[in-house]
């Protein structure tokens, strides 16, 4: 049964969940520090700045220094949350993320804000669809893509308590709270959103609710589509992926480049262990001008687009 489109009043910008959670954590732990590149407003950290002015380090528009400062703060025992637009954090400071954070293995939390195509009409310079491909090959770096405000808050709490580098990709495009019972956030563990046996839809971040809706629509056609929320890209839940491969067909859905991201990670694993036909939904690269909503629709990141991809892959399924 297809779900009605969520009311806009029930949609949430996950940046608020990030900021609120970080403020609460900082009140309890003086080691928690925020590092920004003139991104206080876009990271929703105005409240943090007001409450903890000494622990908000604004280095100005200088991403390489921002990430290096995070590593230095971690060296001195702080727990820095380095928060900036994901496109600049990951693109401009990639070598700092590699050498200063991942390879040095410092306890730095990188928060990629307004990720994916959230900046819509501003164009590919401001889109962050390459970040999965750039980051998921870095050892030591846990890569989390929360699907909604609840998961964003849980990921931030977990990251604060985890000793080691973490990247959390926070969405700006409004998403609904997923209606799933008894949720537990566990890095490296996929969340089963819908049971299903004909095909598996593996989604992350802003696309999980679309996959859920597509599964419900497909159920009306007699197609049993499993949905996994793969909020942890690194480490990947290999068991859940290989079990998904047992359904005989996989669709991956991500607000990211179709190459090198979630789809790539799933394909790398299945092709070596249990090859199955796959469809990969995402963006092809530098996209045309358009709002975030238009871009999602245009590139099939929608209930109908995901359902269509499921039908396509089912047609290729080996019997």
């Amino acid at each position, binding site marked *: 049964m297809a779900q009605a489109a969520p009311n806009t009043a029930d949609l949430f910008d996950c940046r608020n969940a990030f900021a609120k959670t970080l403020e609460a954590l900082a009140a309890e732990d003086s080691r928690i*520090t925020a*590092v920004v590149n003139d991104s206080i407003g876009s990271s929703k950290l105005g409240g943090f700045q007001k409450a903890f002015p*000494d*622990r908000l*380090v604004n*280095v*100005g528009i*200088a991403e*390489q*220094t921002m*990430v*290096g*400062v*995070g*590593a*230095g*703060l*971690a*060296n*001195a*025992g*702080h727990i*820095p949350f380095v928060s900036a637009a994901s496109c600049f954090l990951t693109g401009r400071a990639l*070598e*700092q993320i590699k*050498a*200063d954070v991942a*390879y*040095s*293995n*410092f306890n730095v939390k990188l928060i990629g804000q307004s990720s994916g195509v959230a900046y819509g009409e501003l164009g590919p310079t401001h889109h962050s669809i390459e970040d999965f491909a750039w980051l998921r090959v870095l050892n030591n770096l846990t890569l989390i893509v929360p699907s909604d405000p609840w998961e964003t808050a849980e990921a931030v709490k977990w990251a604060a308590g985890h000793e080691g580098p973490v990247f959390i990709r926070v969405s700006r495009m409004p998403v609904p709270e997923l209606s799933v019972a008894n949720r537990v956030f566990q890095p490296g563990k996929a969340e089963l959103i819908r049971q299903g046996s004909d095909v598996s839809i593996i989604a992350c971040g802003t696309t999980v609710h679309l996959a859920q809706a597509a599964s419900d629509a497909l159920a009306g056609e007699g197609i049993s589509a499993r949905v996994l929320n793969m909020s942890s890209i690194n480490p990947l839940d290999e068991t859940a992926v290989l079990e998904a491969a047992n359904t005989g067909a996989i669709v991956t859905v991500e607000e990211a480049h179709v190459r090198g991201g979630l789809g790539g990670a799933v394909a790398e694993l299945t092709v070596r262990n249990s090859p199955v036909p796959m469809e990969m939904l995402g963006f092809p690269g530098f996209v045309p001008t358009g709002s975030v909503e238009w871009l999602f629709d245009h590139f099939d990141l929608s209930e109908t687009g995901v359902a269509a991809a499921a039908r396509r892959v089912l047609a290729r399924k080996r019997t």
Partner: protein
Amino acid sequence: MAHSSNVIAHPNDPVPVIRDRALWMRRRAFKMVYDAQLGHPGGDFSAIDAIATLYFGVLHYDPKQPELPGRDRFIMSKGHATGALYTALCAAGYFEESWLDTYMQPQSKLNGHPNRNYVPGVETNTGPLGHGVPVALGIAIAGQITGANHRTYVLTGDGELQEGSNWEAAMTAGHRKLENMTLIVDRNRLQQGAGTEETNSLDPLDGKFRAFGWHVEIVDGHDHEALFTALSAPCKGRGKPLCVIANTVKGKGVSFMENQASWHHGVPNAEQFDTAMKELV
């Protein structure tokens, strides 16, 4: 917060010890490079006197507790000069001398560029240039936030200053008046391929740092007394980060290496090694 009482104590006049250690470091680093037939001896030798001055006259640390929160930090931003860094850490007591025999051998802890996860005393992994100053800045900011008493020293090459990240960090250090932060520039005027001034000129380097809000001292980078005076001067009340421009000679101490860009990553043959050992006394 005062420095912990269990940090090592330097003698009142550490200059003789610094001189002695610097000589040992040059000889030992050159043997490492000779054995490995790999390394960056020219830059090792320009930086060694400043590094020896820090470890044997200035820094507060305990090699048995490399993670001691109140320690002073030294970051080797020119991470390729591991001959200088590893010999200093070894002489300071962070690890056994036998480690040096493994330099760049398969599975050695002593990679061509330092890794904090394997080598005690290494503060952050460096190698790509322009990374050390921002990390040092973060440590210094941590001291500013908590009022901790530790000081942070970072050494860059001069050619390395062509990387823009250094200037981002220098701007922030000046803006925040981080008097607990000291940058030493190994000003040997040579980079890998040619002179700094013919490649992408840095002069007037002192004026650049002053314009960024730093206090600048220019010293002979091989004069241990001058280095000690500049690097150990109290920072409280200066109200600015300190930049020590150490005028140095690439390959300092070995006649055929001095001021030769080719010794950036040149390695000695047997005859050159013997000559160097005769000169380094």
